[in-house]
């Protein structure tokens, strides 16, 4: 029973982790809580919906296309709404981010209605039983996709030139400029990667819960931010760890019958973490940030 809940929590947590990675990378590099991140996740789900329902593409092709489009959108949002404010007070960028979030949510409600839509069942659900444990192929797809994407991200950040540039800008922007790193391009790239991961999360959750709506990104967005803070904001493995922990915690609270309070518990944990150890679980004084 507990193991079953752990598995369910890991699956939900994988999606939070994908979202949290975007938050943590963006925060690491420009110190912005990108409130629009949860809405990119929503857009990812909607593009997925379009590719699956209208164009009848294969799920994984739709996933890649949706990630690519959201990557471009992420770069576009950064270019329009955040880049001109790079040297303004931080509150101005934060409010601009809120504006973008507001725009995406209400724009999608305006264009496609605010009702829930059922996400196409692109992959037939089959349940596997291992003793008393039960796991579906959808759940396996979610967790493997998430892990594969995280490994890819790690390779990009650790092994490529762009990844090194990202780490450099996040460590010291001024010094990075002096070393000849194109900061604008690096920040764009960070937004592209983060948004692609969010889009993947959105599509996976659409497949899992079978429905999507324009406000679906709000609560997961905030929870993913909590996950990023929990693991240590700016630290990539921390975001993954935080995501899984929040996912497990949420399914556990549901399992003990406190599902009405599950969001309140997440927020309470956030506040406690902020007060006791603002650098998060994996945070050290000398932080490895991206």
């Amino acid at each position, binding site marked *: 029973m507990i193991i079953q809940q752990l598995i369910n929590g890991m699956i939900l947590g994988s999606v939070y982790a994908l979202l949290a990675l975007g938050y943590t990378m963006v925060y690491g590099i420009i*110190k912005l*809580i990108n409130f629009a991140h949860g809405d990119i996740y929503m857009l990812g789900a909607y593009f997925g919906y379009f590719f699956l329902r209208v164009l009848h593409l294969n799920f994984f092709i739709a996933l890649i296309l949706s990630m690519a489009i959201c990557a471009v959108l992420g770069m576009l949002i950064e270019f*329009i*709404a955040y880049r*001109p*404010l790079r040297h*303004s*007070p*931080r*509150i*101005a*960028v*934060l*409010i*601009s981010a*809120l*504006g*973008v979030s*507001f*725009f995406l*949510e*209400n*724009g999608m*409600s*305006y264009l496609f209605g*605010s009702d829930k839509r059922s996400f196409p069942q692109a992959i037939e659900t089959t349940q596997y039983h291992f003793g008393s444990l039960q796991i579906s192929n959808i759940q396996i797809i979610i967790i493997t996709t998430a892990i594969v994407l995280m490994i890819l991200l790690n390779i990009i950040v650790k092994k490529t030139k762009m990844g090194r540039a990202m780490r450099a800008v996040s460590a010291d922007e001024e010094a990075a400029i002096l070393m000849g790193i194109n900061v604008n391009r690096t920040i764009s790239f960070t937004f592209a990667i983060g948004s692609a991961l969010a889009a993947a999360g959105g599509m996976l959750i659409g497949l899992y819960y079978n429905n999507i709506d324009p406000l679906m990104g*709000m609560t997961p967005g*905030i929870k993913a*931010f*909590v996950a990023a*803070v929990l693991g240590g904001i700016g630290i990539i493995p921390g975001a993954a760890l935080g995501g899984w922990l929040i996912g497990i915690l949420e399914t556990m609270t549901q399992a003990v019958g406190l599902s*009405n*309070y599950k*969001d*309140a518990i997440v*927020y*309470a944990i*956030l*506040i406690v973490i*902020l*007060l006791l150890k*603002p650098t998060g679980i994996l945070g050290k004084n000398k932080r490895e940030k991206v």
Partner: protein
Amino acid sequence: MDKAHIKYTLSWATLALMIVILIVVMTMFDIIGPYGLTTIVLIGINLIAAIGLNLIIGMSGQFSLGHAGFMAIGAYATALIVTAVPTIFGFIMSLFVGAMLSGIVALIVGIPTLRLRGDYLAIATLGVSEIIRILIMNFKFTHGPAGIFAIPSFVNWPLVFGMAVLTIIVVVNLVRSPTGRAIIAVRDNEIAAESLGINTTKYKVIAFVLGAVLAALAGGLRASFIQSVSPQDFTFMQSITILIIVVLGGIGSISGTVVTAIALGILDVILQNFGSLRMVIYAVVLIVVMLFRPQGLFGRSEFSLKKMLFDSGGNHDKDHSKGA
């Protein structure tokens, strides 16, 4: 108090009176119908909440995203007490209770969280506000997600107008008092303020608690005016609505808040026909204002009658008071 000051104060009072007369006359000639009066009341309520938030964000420089939570406390206090004691006395008492309760919660929350900086504080206050809402949604006595209906109404436009004017007077005077100066000093440079012997946490908490009290007041007025409350009224969106007023007007400018609250109230009426497109337009306005005027429309400057009426060039004002 010298004559010039009395004259200056009187001219503000005259301005307020003129607005009241204008509203009364316009109601008499049916230029403002019941719908117009509703708009005026809602503008006043938003104004009170926004001034409270501006005190927190603009004056003390602490970024709070939890205003809706404190409004909810005030609203539910009024809803519950007025339903039990449906008299004007019960209503006044409910506003006090709501304000006190909200102040106490802000104190408990503020002392630890105000140590956090910038974004962390924003997200912590957002968390607090959501926790308040989720608790209200799950408590029995608050009637859960459905909320409370048929709350007796004691709110009319002169009351809200009077409360808004009173709020402005209190906050403007606070800002100009030694306490207010200390709050602004903490905002401008925390380390410098601390080294001058200012207890930074204390002044941040004062601003935070007062802002929460004003939010509760606005919430209470709103509950009695709309005659219903539900947890859905106090989501993150409500905090954002108030935040937009503060930010567009200019973070730290009371007159900016007043002007934007009125302007957005009127814009709301105009955009009513646009339905959900209205929110899209708001979002675009918000982004555009941030891009071209990150400090808000008024920045930190204040609209001043003194400059307009008495300061007609050079030392006119001084000479006049000497002569008199």
